[in-house]
């Protein structure tokens, strides 16, 4: 019976979170209350909590995680200096002759933006602010515009170098080692953030390609959903300006990504250089002032503290969860699900999908993955495949009405003329595309695992 307290605690946390107090404190606070009650009733040993400082120091000492603030800095810099906005206007000029050209530009720019910020909320808000008004003005249907913006915004999960993948890689690598040690393998294989990046490249690009194909098809058969610019305005393309707006940010992001994938630089090093490069780009286009720098530094500090405080909260939660014997319980539950590995993975994916309605990827990565990861990996699942699946799954969850995060973010910045119903309708085809990709990954896991396997 005692083990079930851990499950009750998990449900209690989900309920408490609905009140709207910051996640990190709600998480740790609820766990602490359970621990205190457990201590008085003799079901919990408070000495478990003395492992906390060591855990917290582990977060400080983790060099992979240093990539997180640096990537945030790079994304905030690109966003605050309007480089992304320039990119969008050049790109849409480039595609102005194509049916649905603006929509395709939004997907491509969103992909680059997602790759640089890696935060769903930031990408959707930025993309929504800079492209939704333009799309509506050009006569795009509200639902098509809103749908493509939301879907593209969630690409930040999967397109490397995403922060989601950095954090997932960190958690999965320790889960992978733990599962192998449990099986008695004392020279365990490892999985790195770079491996996860490599694994996500093909699925991520496939997703972008499918978005574009969908836009091409729908605008071909229903041109009134996405009218072209009148020819008069098309002619205003200035080649030089276009190249300037397009080339620099693309080179930056490709260089950052390429150096990680080629194994030349660690994610942390690449992120540092990328952040510096973003500042140079802003300087080059005369958009860097002391005030702007201050703004970027302060926003970076806020977002970084936000991310890491959740790690702190999750550390408290997972210690208490373990103290109540929750890990053993989950392992037991998963191995008893009918259908073996497939059944267990399916159950976990469904659970993560629904948790995605109330929790952001950082919380899920640090609360759920350490609990289910060792069990699933111990049953023989590939860690890269699992990481990519979790990322796409969460991405789909963030897009699914009525609770998807991306929808809220867009609702927050969209004009009143765009009905919530339009947003919901617009995302449906994109959800279909993502589900299709997940099914594909189930039948051909090599879509994710092939590229990393070349490394060895």
């Amino acid at each position, binding site marked *: 019976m005692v083990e079930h307290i851990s499950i009750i605690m998990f449900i209690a946390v989900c309920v408490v*979170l*609905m*009140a*709207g*107090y*910051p*996640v*990190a*404190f*709600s998480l*740790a*606070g*609820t766990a*602490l*209350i359970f621990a205190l009650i457990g201590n008085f009733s003799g079901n919990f040993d408070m000495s478990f*909590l003395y492992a*906390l*400082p*060591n855990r*917290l*120091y582990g977060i*400080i*000492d983790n*060099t992979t*995680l*240093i990539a997180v*603030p*640096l990537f945030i*800095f790079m994304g905030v810099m690109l966003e605050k200096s309007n480089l992304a906005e320039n990119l969008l206007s050049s790109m849409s000029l480039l595609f102005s002759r194509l049916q649905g050209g603006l929509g395709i530009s939004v997907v491509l720019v969103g992909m680059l933006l997602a790759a640089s910020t890696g935060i769903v909320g930031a990408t959707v808000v930025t993309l929504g602010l800079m492209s939704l008004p333009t799309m509506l003005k050009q006569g795009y249907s509200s639902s098509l515009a809103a749908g493509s913006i939301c879907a593209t915004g969630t690409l930040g999960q999967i397109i490397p170098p995403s922060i989601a993948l950095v954090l997932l890689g960190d958690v999965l690598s320790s889960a992978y080692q733990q599962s192998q040690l449990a099986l008695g393998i004392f020279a365990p294989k490892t999985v790195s953030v770079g491996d996860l990046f490599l694994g996500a490249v093909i699925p991520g690009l496939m997703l972008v390609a499918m978005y574009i194909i969908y836009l091409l098809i729908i605008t071909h058969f229903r041109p009134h959903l996405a009218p072209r610019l009148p020819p008069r305005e098309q002619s205003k393309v200035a080649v030089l300006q276009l190249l300037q707006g397009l080339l620099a940010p693309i080179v930056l992001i490709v260089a950052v990504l390429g150096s990680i994938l080629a194994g030349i*630089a660690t994610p*942390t*090093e690449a*992120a*540092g*250089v990328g*952040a*510096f490069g973003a500042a140079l780009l802003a300087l080059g286009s005369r958009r860097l002032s002391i*005030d702007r*720098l*201050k*703004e970027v*530094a*302060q*926003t*970076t*500090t*806020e977002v*970084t*503290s*936000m991310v*890491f*405080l*959740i790690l*702190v*909260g999750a550390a*408290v939660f997972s210690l208490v969860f373990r103290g109540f014997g929750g890990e053993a319980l989950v392992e037991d539950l998963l191995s008893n699900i009918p259908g073996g590995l497939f059944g267990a993975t399916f159950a976990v994916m469904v659970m993560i999908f629904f948790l995605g309605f*109330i*929790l*952001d990827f950082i919380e899920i990565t640090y609360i759920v993955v350490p609990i289910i990861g060792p069990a699933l990996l111990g049953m023989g699942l590939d860690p890269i495949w699992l990481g990519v699946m979790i990322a796409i799954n969460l991405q789909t969850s963030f897009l699914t009405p009525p609770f998807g995060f991306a929808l*809220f973010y867009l609702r927050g910045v969209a004009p009143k003329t765009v009905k919530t119903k339009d947003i919901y309708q617009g995302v449906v085809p994109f959800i279909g595309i993502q589900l299709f990709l997940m099914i594909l990954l189930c039948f051909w896991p090599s879509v994710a695992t092939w590229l990393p396997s070349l490394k060895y």
Partner: protein
Amino acid sequence: MAYKLAHPFKLLALGIDHFTEWTGRIVAWLTLAMVALTCAIVLMRYFFETGSIALQEAVTYLHAAVFLAGAAFTLKRKGHVSVDIFYQNFNPRTQAVIEILGALFFLLPVCLLILIVSWDYVASSWAINEASREAGGLPWLYLLKTLLLLMPVTIMLQGLSEIIKNILFLLYSKMPASPQGEA
């Protein structure tokens, strides 16, 4: 009349807000230093083929300072994520009650817990003037670990300020004007 009685509390809350805002603004510059040092490390490694443990550890120190000392600043600017599906539709008084209860039952106890369990951990590090285990590493590991005490203390301070401000709001229906961020 009655609002005047609350004056000392208001001053206390605003004083804490000022303190938090300024620590945050100072700490924020460290993110620039992180970027610069990381680039320096990369340059040294790929062009001069030398590495410096001390520089790498310096980035770790800066990183820790940013997210641990910046946590209270983020709290003040309401930058910590929450599930606001329902929260945003609550009326301001309900929101204030949630803020007070959250701070009392979650924020303060959790910070106290971190403070209590980390105390001996940090003290024993001071006792031996703990330095890096790596050759050529920085000798101030005990200072780095002390951040584990600084974080809960600064968050508790800011939490106290939030409690006072929300209680004043509930009592007098107005929120003391707090120094605003520039963002």
